[in-house]
C-alpha cells in the first residue's frame, strides 16, 4: 500500500540504511576484536551503545553516513602515519601540517573563521554560492574537529599507556567538542529547514569559541595532553560530557537563531533572512533537543557523582548551575507549550538563556570553586 502519512523511521529503512548499519557493526566488531580484552564491562556496554547510536544517527540523518566514516578514515590515516611513534608528529609532513591532532584543530579553527566570513558575505550579498561554500567549509571544519579528537585520543596513548584517555576531560578539549557539536547540529537544521542564511549567526558563536581555543592554546599552552586525575578516571565521563555538550551546543544555537529572529522582527536584514516563523520553529526544536540531552547529561552526572563524590547531588556550584539552566529551559518550554508564547519574548529569553548557559559552562570554572575544578582558566 502506498504510504501517505509520514511513517516512523524504522518502517522506512532501505538497503542503503542496512548497508551503513553493517559497516558500523563490522567496524565495532573489529575494534572489539582488537581491544575487547582491554575493556571493562562498562566500556563494552558503551561500545555496543555507541554502535547503536551511530547506526541510529546515520539512519536519521543521511549526511552522517559519509561524515562519520570520513572523519574516521582521516584519523585512521593519521594513526597509520604515526606508526606507534609520537616523534613522527614532527617528522611526517602529513602529520605536521595536516593530520596530527593539533594541526587538525588549527585547520578546524581556520575553516570555521573562513566559513563565518563566507556565510556573512553570502547572506549580505544574497549569493547562494558563497553560502554553499560556507556550509562546505563548516563541514570540512567538523571533519577536522572529529578526526582531530580521534587522533588526540590515540596520541594520548602514545605518550604513555597510563596517560591514554578520551579527549573530553578539560576545558580545551570540550571547547573543541562544543564547536563540533554546535556545527553539526546547525548543519542538520540548515538542511532540514533550508535556512542557510542563519549560518552567519550560528557561526559567530562558534567563532567566539574558536577565538577562545586559540587564546587558550597560544597564551596558556592548554593544548598539552595531561593524564587524568583519579576523580576523572571513570567510564561515566565518556557519556556524561558529550551528552552535556549536545545540550550546550543546542542552547547556543537557539540563542543565535533568537538573535536572527529579533533582527528580522525589527526589519533589520529581514529581506536577506528566512521568515521569523521558520526561525521560531528551528529555535524551538533546538531547545527541545538540547533540553532532552541536558536532562540526560545531568542525570548521568548525578549517577557519576554517586560513584565518585559520595552522593548523587551535593549542591556543588556546577550542579547547582546545571539545575538553574535546566529550570530556565523548562520554564521556556512551558511558556511555549502551555501558554502558547511565540516569537519575540521567547527569542529574547533564548538569548538570555545563552548567558545563563555560558555561566554554567565557563563562568562557574572561572569564578566559583567546587568539585568541578579541573577546567580552571
Amino acid at each position, binding site marked *: 500500500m502506498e504510504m*501517505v*502519512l509520514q511513517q516512523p523511521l524504522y518502517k522506512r529503512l532501505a538497503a542503503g540504511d542496512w548497508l551503513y548499519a553493517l559497516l558500523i557493526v563490522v567496524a565495532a566488531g573489529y575494534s572489539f576484536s582488537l581491544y575487547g580484552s582491554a575493556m571493562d564491562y562498562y566500556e563494552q556496554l558503551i561500545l555496543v551503545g555507541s554502535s547503536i547510536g551511530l547506526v541510529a544517527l546515520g539512519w536519521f540523518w543521511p549526511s552522517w553516513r559519509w561524515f562519520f566514516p570520513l572523519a574516521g578514515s582521516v584519523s585512521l590515516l593519521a594513526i597509520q602515519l604515526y606508526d606507534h611513534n609520537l616523534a613522527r608528529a614532527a617528522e611526517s609532513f602529513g602529520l605536521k601540517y595536516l593530520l*596530527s591532532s593539533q594541526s587538525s584543530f588549527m585547520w578546524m579553527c581556520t575553516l570555521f573563521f573562513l566559513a563565518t566570513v563566507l556565510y556573512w558575505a553570502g547572506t549580505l550579498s544574497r549569493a547562494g554560492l558563497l553560502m554553499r561554500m560556507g556550509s562546505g567549509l563548516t563541514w570540512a571544519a567538523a571533519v577536522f574537529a572529529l578526526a582531530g579528537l580521534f587522533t588526540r585520543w590515540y596520541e594520548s596513548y602514545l605518550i604513555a599507556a597510563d596517560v591514554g584517555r578520551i579527549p573530553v576531560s578539560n576545558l580545551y578539549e570540550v571547547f573543541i567538542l562544543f564547536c563540533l557539536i554546535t556545527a553539526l547540529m546547525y548543519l542538520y537544521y540548515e538542511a532540514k529547514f533550508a535556512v542557510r542564511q542563519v549560518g552567519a549567526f550560528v557561526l559567530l558563536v562558534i567563532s567566539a569559541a574558536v577565538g577562545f581555543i586559540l587564546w587558550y592554546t597560544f597564551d596558556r599552552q592548554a593544548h*598539552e595532553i595531561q*593524564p587524568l586525575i583519579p*576523580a576523572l578516571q571513570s567510564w561515566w565521563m565518556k557519556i556524561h560530557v558529550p551528552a552535556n555538550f549536545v545540550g550546550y551546543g543546542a542552547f547556543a544555537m537557539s540563542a543565535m537563531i533568537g538573535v536572527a529572529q529579533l533582527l528580522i522582527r525589527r526589519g533589520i536584514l529581514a529581506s536577506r533572512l528566512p521568515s521569523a516563523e521558520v526561525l521560531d*520553529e528551528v529555535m524551538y526544536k533546538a531547545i527541545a533537543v538540547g*533540553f532532552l540531552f541536558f536532562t540526560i547529561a545531568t542525570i548521568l552526572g548525578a549517577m557519576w557523582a*554517586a560513584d565518585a563524590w559520595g*552522593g548523587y547531588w551535593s549542591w556543588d556550584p556546577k550542579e547547582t548551575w546545571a539545575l538553574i539552566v535546566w529550570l530556565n529551559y523548562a520554564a521556556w518550554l512551558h511558556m511555549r507549550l502551555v501558554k502558547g508564547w511565540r516569537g519575540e519574548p521567547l527569542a529574547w529569553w533564548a538569548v538570555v538563556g545563552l548567558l545563563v548557559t555560558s555561566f554554567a559552562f565557563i563562568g562557574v570554572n572561572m569564578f566559583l570553586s567546587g568539585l568541578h575544578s579541573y577546567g580552571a582558566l
Partner: protein
Amino acid sequence: MRFAIGLLTILAIASIIGTVLKQNEPYPNYAFEFGPFWFAAFEKLGLYDVYHSSWFLLILAFLVLSTTLCIIRNGPAFLRDMKSFRERATDNSLRAMRHSQQLDRPLDEAQAMRLLQGHGLRVKRAARDDGSVLLAAKKGSANKLGYFFAHIAMVVICIGGLMDGNLPLKIGELTGSIKPETRDLPQAQIPEQSRLGTGNLSFRGSVTVPEGKSADVIFMNSGNGYLVQELPFIVTLKKFHVDYYSNGMPKLFASDIVVTDKDSGKTSEHTIKVNHPLVVDGVAIYQASFGDGGSPLQLKAWNLQTPQAAPTEIKGNSLGAQPLKVNGRDYKLEFGELRVFNVENTGAPGSDDKSLEQRLKDARSVRQDTKALKNIGPSISFKLRDQHGQAREYQHYMAPMQQDGEWYQVAGVRSDVGQPFQYLRLPLDKDMSIASFMRLYAALKDPTLYDEIRKRTTAKAMQGQAISPAMQQQFSDSVRWVLSRFAEGGFKALEQFLDDKVPADKRQAIAQTYIKILQGAVVDVMDVAQAKAGLAPWPQDAKHYRFLLDGLVGASALQDYAAPVYLEMSGFDQVQASGLQMTRSPGKNVVYLGSLLLVIGIILMFYVREVRVWLLLQRDGTRLAMTSNRHNRDLDQDFERMVGYLNKQAGEA
C-alpha cells in the same frame, strides 16, 4: 502554574546565592568575612547552608505540592483526551480545522478503513443520523502520557531527595533532642545528644583514619558544630596508597581497609579507590581525601644563640605537640602535617618570553604537558609558641634543593596564617650539611672575633692597595661597625641606618661601600671561624666564595626567622591517614526512577507526534480533516499528500 514559576524563580535565585557564597565553611571564617552584623543576619537566613535551610526545603515542598495539584487538576482531562477519538465532532468543527478539505467524490468505507489502519492509526466508526459515517482515527497518543511521566517524575525525584535530606535531623534539632557539638572533644566524650544511632536511615559524613587505626563513627557538619553518626561496622585502615604519573600528577588514591561487622564480628578486606566505592550494609564508603596520620619524626635542633655547637637530637610526632626548653625558656612545639611529597611547578611559566613563531610551533606540536612538575621532597610544618602564647609558623623542607648548581636547605616562616611563607635558603657544605653555615653564622654574631677579623680584612685591603695608608684606621673601624650592625639585624639594619642617617643622594654610593666591605670581610669571618673550631681554612675559589655570599643572605634572613632554635628534619617514619566519606542514601533509587520517568516523559512529549485524521464519508462526497499536536511542516505535507491520494482513489472508484 504562575505560582509554580514564581517558586522556581525563587529557587533559582536561592541556588545562585548558594554557589556564590561558599557553603558549610567554619563559622569564624564567615564572621571574619562579613563582620558581626551581616554574619548574624546571614546566619539567621541560613545562608551558610542554603540548600538545607528550612525555607529552601519549604519551597521544595511547595513545588512538590504544586506539581501534584497540577497533575490532579489537569490529569483527568488529559486522560479523557488521550482516550477519546473525538468521533462526535460536528461538521462545523471539522470544517473549522486548519487542515480540512471537502472532496466532491464519495469514498468506500472499507477502503477508507484500510487506508487508515494501514498507517497504524486506530479508528473509531460513528454512524450519523443523516446516513453519513465518520471515521475518527489517531495515533501517537503516548505523547500525552509524556506529560504524566515528566510531571510525576518531578514529584518522585523530590520525594527521593527529601528521603535523603536531613529532615529528621532538622526536626530533632528543632525539638532539642539532637544538638550539634561545637567543642573539639575526643570521640568517646561526645555527649549522647550529639550522637546518632545506627538506625538512622540516611546520612552523609566523613572520618579520617590513620594507618593501623580504626573508626566506627563518622562526623557530619551541622551548622556551627558537628554530629557523630554511629556505624554498624568498624573500618580499619591497613595501608593508604598514592601513585603518581611520570609528570608528578596524582594517578591513584586507594585505601586497603578491613571492615568488621559489629554484630557478627565477621571481617572482610577491601580496597577502595576514587570512583570505586564499597557498599557495606547499605552504607557506601568512598575514598575522599588523604593526609598525614601522625608520623614519628627525628629532628636536629640548632641553638641559634650558640650556632657553632653541635645540634641536639629531638623526637616528635607530626600533628602532635610537645614542650621544648631552649636557653632556659619554655616553648611549646606544635607540629603540623608531614608532607612526604611536595609536587611543585618549578618550571618557568612557559609562555612569557616566547616569540610568536615559537608559540605557533608549540601549538602545532603534540606533547605531554611540559610544566616542570617536580617533587621537592618531604616537608614538616610546625609552630613554636612562647610563654605568652605568641607563635610563628615554620615550614621546613628535608631534602637539599639545587638552585643554579649549588645546594641549599630551604625553610619558610610566617607570623600570620593568612600570609605566604617567607623562605630562607641556607647553603650546604660539601657534606651536605648546614654545619659550616652555622659556624659562619656564629662567627658573624660574635663581637669578640671582630678585632681579629678587621685586622685581617684591613691588611688584605692594604695589600691590594684598595685603600691608602691614611685611611687604614677609618677602614678598620668601618669593618667593625658594618659587622656589628649586620649582626644586629642583617641587611635590613644597614638599610635602616642608610635611610635614617644618610642623605638620599649619597645612599647608593655608601650602600655599595658597605656591601663591598661585607663581601670582603666575610672571607675573613669564615677563616676565623674555621681557626676557632680547629679546622683548616677554606680554599679561596669561586665555589667557596659563593657559599659565603649565600651565607650572608642566609644569616640576614635568619634574623627574621625569630626563633631561638632552628629545627632540621633528619628523618621520619611515615604514617598516612585516609579520609573516608560514608553515605547511606535510601532515596537514591527513588531519584533514579524519577530520572528515568523524566527522560521517558520528555521523549514522549517532544518526539512522539500525535496525529488525528477524520474521514466523513458522505453520500456525495468526503470531508478530510487532520490535526497534530504540533503545527509543523510535517502535518502540512501529510495533509497535502492525503488530499492528493484521496482524490486519486476517489477518481478510480
